[in-house]
């Protein structure tokens, strides 16, 4: 069943391949062309060679024949001529003429025997056949008669031979060779075509069809050519692989590779798709979060507004509180002091010495508290007053403050160094207040110093201007430096150095409000240096 099918298949395929071979250019046709061409050339070459050999053989055959004629006919010819028997001569040369290829034989008589009439037959020429002027081959032999041991030349025989027969034979042979060779070539070509088609072309087409129908989406089973049974069935083990097997295996490898690559590509694609999906989801999430964030932001804004409002309210309350402190707290102090003074002035006699001293103590307390209220007010104002930032000359400010301090304390001899043109962007009143505090401190804490020196200047560090106020006064232990800027914190007793303990807190607030920082370097009995920075722009 299978064989029939295979045969039918082959027939169909061969018909197809022949059709293709003659209708269009195919490998088979080209192969046939080349075979015919080459076969014709080879045939022609060998035919020519053979014909040449045949020609040579035939020619030599003629020559040999002529040599035989010389040996076998010349004796009897000489005898006949001796007797001048011309008819006999004619008979004899006709016998020669009957030999193959001999065209003509001519006997020229030069001499005759003594028995014959002298000169009677002299110069006779006996010719048979058709003599031509330029024969293919001609041999002349002398006819010698031995008479009593003496050779006598009686005549000359000229034999002409023609190659016509040879040519005819060669021509026939050429025709025969061409026909047989042509037939052979044709049959061999057809057979070659058939074999080539069976062995190669149909497989090539199968491969082409397979390749055409190859679909990566639905991979078919590997390519197998219908050819194995003859070749492989014979021996138990696998036959050696030929080129087609190699092509098929390479093709199958290629397909496998393609499939693998395609699958990889698909999986990569799927991954990419998944990635894209994830990214899209992430983007959605981001969008959602953004919306949430903007919601939160607006919530935050609302909250900030609420807080700001609350802060403003509390600021207002603080201001109101400051006002009430300035007024309501100071007023009763005034009264205490006022009536204390009236007591001292108008009722001293009733109080006695002790009583007067007590009233004095009361008044001192009032004065102190009043100063504290003043400082406290200053401090709280630092926080609430709006800054007017302009360029101001801190050097001028400092020298102004020092001249005021000198006026107040004309007995003090203090060496003062002010770096000229310390210009900064500050709020004039606030900065003046800060400088006042710092310089007053320096002035105050150098009171007990032998040769007091106060200097104010600036230096640049890491692109930032640092201002400093330095004195060689009492100084302090750096262990307490941290609390120095807290309100109401004092390092010295009131007896040593008076003060409310609010000055440096005020300075710090002012500096912070100017976007700067303040710090101190000091040592006990060795002066103090206050450093501060300001916002550059």
């Amino acid at each position, binding site marked *: 069943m299978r064989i029939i099918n295979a045969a039918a298949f082959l027939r169909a395929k061969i018909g197809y391949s022949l059709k293709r071979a003659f209708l269009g250019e195919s490998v088979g046709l080209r192969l046939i062309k080349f075979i015919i061409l080459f076969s014709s050339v080879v045939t022609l070459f060998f035919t020519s060679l053979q014909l040449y050999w045949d020609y040579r053989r035939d020619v030599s055959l003629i020559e040999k024949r002529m040599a035989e004629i010389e040996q076998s006919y010349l004796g009897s010819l000489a005898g006949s001529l001796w007797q001048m028997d011309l008819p006999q001569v004619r008979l004899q040369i006709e016998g020669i003429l009957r030999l193959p290829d001999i065209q003509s034989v001519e006997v020229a008589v030069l001499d005759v025997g003594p028995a014959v009439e002298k000169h009677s037959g002299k110069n006779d020429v006996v010719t048979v056949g058709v003599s031509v002027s330029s024969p293919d081959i001609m041999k002349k032999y002398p006819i010698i008669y031995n008479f009593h041991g003496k050779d006598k030349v009686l005549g000359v025989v000229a034999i002409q031979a023609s190659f016509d027969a040879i040519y005819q034979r060669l021509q026939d042979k050429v025709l025969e060779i061409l026909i047989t060779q042509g037939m052979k070539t044709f049959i061999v070509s057809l057979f070659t075509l058939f074999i080539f088609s069976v062995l190669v072309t149909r497989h090539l087409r199968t491969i082409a069809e397979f390749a055409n129908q190859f679909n990566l989406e639905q991979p078919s089973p590997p390519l197998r050519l219908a050819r194995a049974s003859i070749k492989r069935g014979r021996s138990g083990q696998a036959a050696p692989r030929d080129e087609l097997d190699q092509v098929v295996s390479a093709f199958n490898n290629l397909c496998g590779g393609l499939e693998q690559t395609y699958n990889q590509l698909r999986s990569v694609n799927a991954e990419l798709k998944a990635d894209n999906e994830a990214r899209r989801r992430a983007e959605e999430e981001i969008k959602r979060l953004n919306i949430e964030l903007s919601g939160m932001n607006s919530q935050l804004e609302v909250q900030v507004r609420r807080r700001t409002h609350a802060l403003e309210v509390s600021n207002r309350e603080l201001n109101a509180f*400051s006002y009430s402190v300035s*007024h309501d707290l100071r007023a009763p102090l*005034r*009264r205490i002091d006022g009536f204390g003074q009236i007591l001292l002035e108008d009722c001293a006699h009733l109080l006695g010495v002790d009583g007067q001293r007590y009233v004095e103590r009361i008044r001192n307390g009032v004065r102190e508290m009043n100063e504290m209220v003043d400082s406290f007010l200053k401090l709280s104002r630092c926080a609430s007053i709006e800054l007017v930032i302009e360029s101001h000359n801190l050097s001028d400010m400092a020298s102004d403050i020092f001249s005021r301090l000198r006026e107040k304390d004309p007995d003090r001899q203090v060496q003062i160094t002010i770096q000229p043109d310390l210009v900064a962007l500050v709020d004039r009143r606030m900065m003046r207040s800060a400088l006042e505090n710092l310089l007053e401190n320096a002035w105050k804490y150098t009171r007990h110093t032998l040769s007091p020196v106060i200097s104010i200047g600036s230096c640049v560090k890491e692109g930032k201007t640092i201002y400093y106020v330095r004195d060689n006064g009492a100084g302090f232990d750096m262990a307490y430096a941290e609390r120095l800027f807290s309100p109401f914190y004092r390092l010295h007793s009131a007896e040593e150095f008076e003060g409310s303990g609010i000055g440096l807190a005020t300075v710090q607030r002012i500096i912070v409000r100017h976007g700067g920082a303040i710090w101190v370097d000091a040592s006990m009995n060795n002066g103090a240096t206050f450093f501060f920075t300001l916002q550059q722009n």
Partner: protein
Amino acid sequence: MSNSTILLVEDNRDDIELAMYALRKNKIPNDIVVARDGVEALDFLFATGVHEGRSEERKPALILLDLNIPRLNGLEVLRRMRDAPETRRIPVVILTTSDDENDIIKGYDFGVNSYIRKPVELSEFTKIINQLGLYWLVLNQSSPR
């Protein structure tokens, strides 16, 4: 000069007494009228309300005005009297324990003649009262009535 009136606008009894003490100490002989709140001060100035029928002679020659007073605060009293033609030119000195900048600025904006922060020490205050009396009642040429 002795018959000219000083209007002291002050709500606290102790403060009034201290002010009177200082005036007394300085032997200022003028008629002193005390208004205990803003409304009463305006009543006296415009001879209305409780002070209806105040004689024209008792119209104050100087007003010592505290700011933190009941009903109508000092600045409001100042603004209203400066709006009225009959009280526009009376010298007003704000005498207060407040040194709040806004108070000072508003005081001058509303046309105060002088802004004095009451010192805590009575002797200082007495000196100031003396200077004020001397300046506004003796040295200063008031606007004609």
